[in-house]
């Protein structure tokens, strides 16, 4: 079963760049100065890679947040990291720095993390619920500030901000892919380095403490690594919801193994999920692509409700 799924996933990854609004006949692809060649290598392949890395980061971020916050509903966006990015993108657009919006988005995500760290230093190590609530409060604050930005922006600016909040995987060329690959590598390295600590946190904070772990510091390290990676991803793609929620839950139910063993599968299938979602979004035959964040939320929200109902039983 697992092998069949893996084979299917690899196949989907391989064929994904071949499908889109414009048909690309194989014979024309190999001609290096053809239009098809350009579309394939400058747009389609980077887009699939972008989807893959972003999906992987969001899914793995979800797993880590669920572990640290002891809350199966938390995702990298729960703490306001994405809302921070969105707000700062809006600020960049309104101030006329549209070209720098990625940088602003990253700054917004990081600023949120820094605020969280400062607040968290006032809580004790076992009080993850309070930190979660602070994150939610921050999200609401950002949402209000975003409304202000909408209010003072022109129609064109409003549209650009709106488009960012829907998520987009439009990208040209490989430069940004390298940045995302580095962010992914950074996240995976940190998680693997602290795998023993992660496994202890999967039992209980007290148990982890008694085995000698600095619970608070370990939590911060994970929080920081996830936020850097998610902040980077969000700065390129805008908000793409629910990947971090769906993928860890589905994979735990398929593999039936402790989360520390699922790091690579969750990253991989998170990536595949977003590639496939994007493949669907690009090929529905509408005049323009359905925004990716809309599609993942359409899939994710019902699943979220299903989880809630299942959890109550």
């Amino acid at each position, binding site marked *: 079963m697992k092998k069949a799924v893996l084979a299917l996933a690899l196949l989907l990854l391989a064929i994904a760049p071949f499908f889109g609004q414009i048909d690309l006949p194989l014979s024309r692809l190999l001609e290096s100065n053809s239009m098809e060649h350009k579309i394939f290598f400058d747009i389609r392949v980077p887009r699939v890679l972008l989807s893959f890395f972003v999906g992987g980061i969001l899914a793995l971020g979800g797993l880590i947040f669920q*572990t640290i916050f*002891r809350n199966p509903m938390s995702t990298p966006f729960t703490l306001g990291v994405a809302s921070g990015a969105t707000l700062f993108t809006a600020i960049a657009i309104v101030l006329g720095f549209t070209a720098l919006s990625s940088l602003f988005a990253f700054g917004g995500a990081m600023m949120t993390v820094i605020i969280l760290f400062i607040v968290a230093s006032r809580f004790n190590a076992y009080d993850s619920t309070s930190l979660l609530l602070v994150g939610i409060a921050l999200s609401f604050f950002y949402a209000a500030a975003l409304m202000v930005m909408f209010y003072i922006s022109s129609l064109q600016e409003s549209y650009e901000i709106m488009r960012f909040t829907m998520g987009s995987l439009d990208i040209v060329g490989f430069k940004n892919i390298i940045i995302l690959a580095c962010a992914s590598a950074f996240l995976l390295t940190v998680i693997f380095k602290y795998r*023993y600590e992660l*496994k*202890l*946190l*999967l*039992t*209980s904070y*007290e*148990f982890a*403490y*008694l*085995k*000698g*772990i*600095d619970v608070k510091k370990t939590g911060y390290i994970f929080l920081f690594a996830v936020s850097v990676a998610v902040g980077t991803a969000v700065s390129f793609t805008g908000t793409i919801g629910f990947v971090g929620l769906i993928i860890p839950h589905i994979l*735990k139910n398929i*593999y*039936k*193994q*402790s*989360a520390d063993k699922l790091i690579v599968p969750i990253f991989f299938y998170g990536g595949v999920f977003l590639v496939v979602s994007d493949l669907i979004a690009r090929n529905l035959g509408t005049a323009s692509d359905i925004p990716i964040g809309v599609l993942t939320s359409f899939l994710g929200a019902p699943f979220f409700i299903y989880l809630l109902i299942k959890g109550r039983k």
Partner: protein
Amino acid sequence: MPINITDYTNNILKNISFSLEHGEDLIILGANGVGKTTLAKVLCGIFPSEAVRIDSITPSKIYGETRARLINYIPAKLDVFDDFITVREFLELGLIHGVARGQHPTTVDDVLQMLTIKHLADKACKLLSSGESQLLLIASALLHDAKYTIFDEPTANLDPKKMQILFNILKYDTLLQSKLVITHNLDLAYKLGFNILFLEDGSIKFHGSGSDFFEQSHLDRLFNGAVVKKNNNIVVKL
């Protein structure tokens, strides 16, 4: 390397001071809500306090193997967040960095055998019954092998046979170093024969030998006649 707590006070406990030499064992008794679990968590540093010293080290101030080797606390209830961590995996986590990895005399399989839970090795911790979880926690204490191990009501969910196994481990086995046992089971406390620390209203009411504590006249004063010594057993009148 004794463990010391000096004049510790919080919202439940008042002016707690005592010390325990390494190698000595202790029973901690007291009514529900008197602060026994709080005291245990203070001693091991889950609730950090400068009042606690183990060989002049405050446990909550250090990290890593050094602290793990000093003191361990076995809660009354098993708490595991992940749905799929198995009994074996949980026990492997109990083998602290360096301590285990071949050097400790007890292996995961040994303790599973000893506590008669070998058949549960690949079962998820979340699916264990309360008694089975308690045995798992005791197994993890054996593997952890701290200088001081605090057991919080280790017998609360055990059937009579398992109770005997645990009794033998606490009383005769040399696998554990100093043991501090929080319990409501007075007969167990009596038979173990350790020194007794009795808490009342957040303070230490008695700290001394088991034989002094279990004098009938002393029991009468503490429990208003609810507890009697009969044929060398401690019985609660019902």
